[in-house]
């Protein structure tokens, strides 16, 4: 099954919740990243003139994903950009997980981009990354 995400109708009324899943750790990271990006703007309407490379490492996979998704929100505010694509590599070396990612996007432009929610952050409410029947799944609630 391909990696996927879907926004949820009946969770966190005032905010924005989604489920993401994939066959591998890397796939669920990619799907969750795509959901955060799409919560803020339609990537199809965003150019590719800004890039930022990021690296994170840690033994707790859920914390690694949480910090990475929070990093996407950080760059939205700190650089004033929205995102068109992300390339992620997640590898394991002993007990440590390593994430290397490249975010691509462009400065916010009301005239050309379909802007959505100004996500303020990723929350720990209902946050759970787990493997279920061989499939990696995570539920995330974004504070908007």
């Amino acid at each position, binding site marked *: 099954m391909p990696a996927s995400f879907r926004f949820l*109708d009946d969770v966190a009324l005032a*905010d924005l919740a989604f489920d993401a899943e994939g066959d591998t750790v890397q796939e669920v990271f990619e799907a969750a990243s795509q959901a955060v990006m799409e919560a803020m703007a339609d990537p199809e309407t965003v150019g590719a003139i800004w890039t930022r490379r990021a690296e994170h490492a840690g033994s707790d996979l859920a914390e690694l994903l949480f910090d990475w998704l929070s990093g996407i929100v*950080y760059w939205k505010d700190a650089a*004033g950009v929205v995102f068109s694509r992300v390339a992620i590599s997640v590898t394991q070396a002993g007990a440590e997980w390593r994430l290397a990612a490249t975010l691509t996007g462009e400065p916010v432009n009301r005239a050309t981009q379909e802007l959505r*929610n100004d996500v303020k952050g990723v*929350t720990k409410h209902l946050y759970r990354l787990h493997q279920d029947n061989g499939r990696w799944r995570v539920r995330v609630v974004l504070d908007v």
Partner: protein
Amino acid sequence: MKLHTAMKVNRISDEIWEIPVTQKPGMLVPARIYGTESILQAMDTGVFEQVTNVACLPGIRRYALCMPDGHWGYGFPIGGVAAFDVRSGIISPGGVGYDVNCGMRLIRTDLTLAEVQPRLDLLMTELFRRVPAGVGASGFVSMDRPSFDRVMTKGARWCIEQGYGWHRDLERIEQGGCLPGADPSKVSDHAVQRGMNQLGTLGSGNHYLEVQVVSNDRIFDPETAAAFGITGQDQIVVMVHCGSRGFGHQVAGDYLKVFEKAMRRHGIAVKDQQLACAPFLSEEGQDYFSAMNCAANTAFANRQVITHQIRQAFAAVFGRSAEEMGMELVYDVAHNIAKVERYPEGELVVHRKGATRAFGPGSQDLPACYQSVGQPVICGGSMETGSYLLVGTTRATDETFGSTMHGSGRTMSRTQAKKSIRGEQLQQQMKQRGILVKAVSMSGLAEEAGFAYKNISEVVESVDRAGITKKVAELRPIGNIKG
């Protein structure tokens, strides 16, 4: 009575309900929920679970409270109020909210609907241009780190020094728009980088700038209204709802992580990870309080810069100065905050999350102009219905640590609202009803449709009947700006 909880809920009065300490292991005080029976019946399970979780936190005094606009939140319910002993109690970011000092501001004018209506389109366009909203918006104030440090410590006072407002504005802002004890060294670089360019911006979600009208038949207390500068006669007022933006969120997120570790060291166990807390007088507790005050001051400054831009927009459209149009501040009040206040029990750290301070007449914390009537309380409804101006009472001071409701509260998720209506369709429907909406995001607009919110009038009636605030006037929207 059918409720979304199996807990025993006792009727104290028609508007006050109590969950005894026997209903959950670890409760130190009872939980009290304000609201009519029908409001209580509509409350989600989260309210009952969360308000009783709060009742278990160390050092809590009297009651864990929830206002009638309460609904599920992170840690505390939205609408939650709790006070903790300064010496033995805690402070929790989950009791303040991620958007530190999210709050309401109301500006009066001498203009009438008849004067504004012909130029409403132009006015909303000018406001939309001058007050950036939506994803990644940055304000017009250029800011370097030393300047931002001064914003964090001085709040709205910094704005007045820079010419963004009038000196007399300060006395009509909660605590003069400047909370003491703000220490920028307790704020992370990440938070600063997120916040530095956002001064004077609205954000998105349920934040807005609204042009409203006050008609004579919607003034409930003419004497208090007059003291607030509200005279009716189709008078135009402007309401602003926003907070500390990404900056406040980063402060809250940073300290939730700190507190998760600190709790183990201090031997504190909580029922929900989002209630992470630390003893108020511990190093971690004081660091968070200092950082939270920085975020709160930044929010006061944010609303002050927006006020300056609103006055400029009105002056440009109507060709008169803001002073000539009587654009005085009615009040600015936080609804996501923790403050040290004195009560009969002593000094308490009062957490208000989605709850508004509502001090009654005679409070030393009120400016001279409001001493005899009480504090203005500004409550925002959905963009389609209307909002309310209320006044604080001594009963609130006695019963609810001087606190009341803050808004109407959602009943439908954002995703579901978007499936029910398109933004363009909603914008057109509202125009036909005489409400002009400018929005950065059409999908964001659909999420804020009136049907996604509770009926604010019922919520207001319940706090009025409970006596913790009294109705002064209803404010009807004619123009709205959303992110």
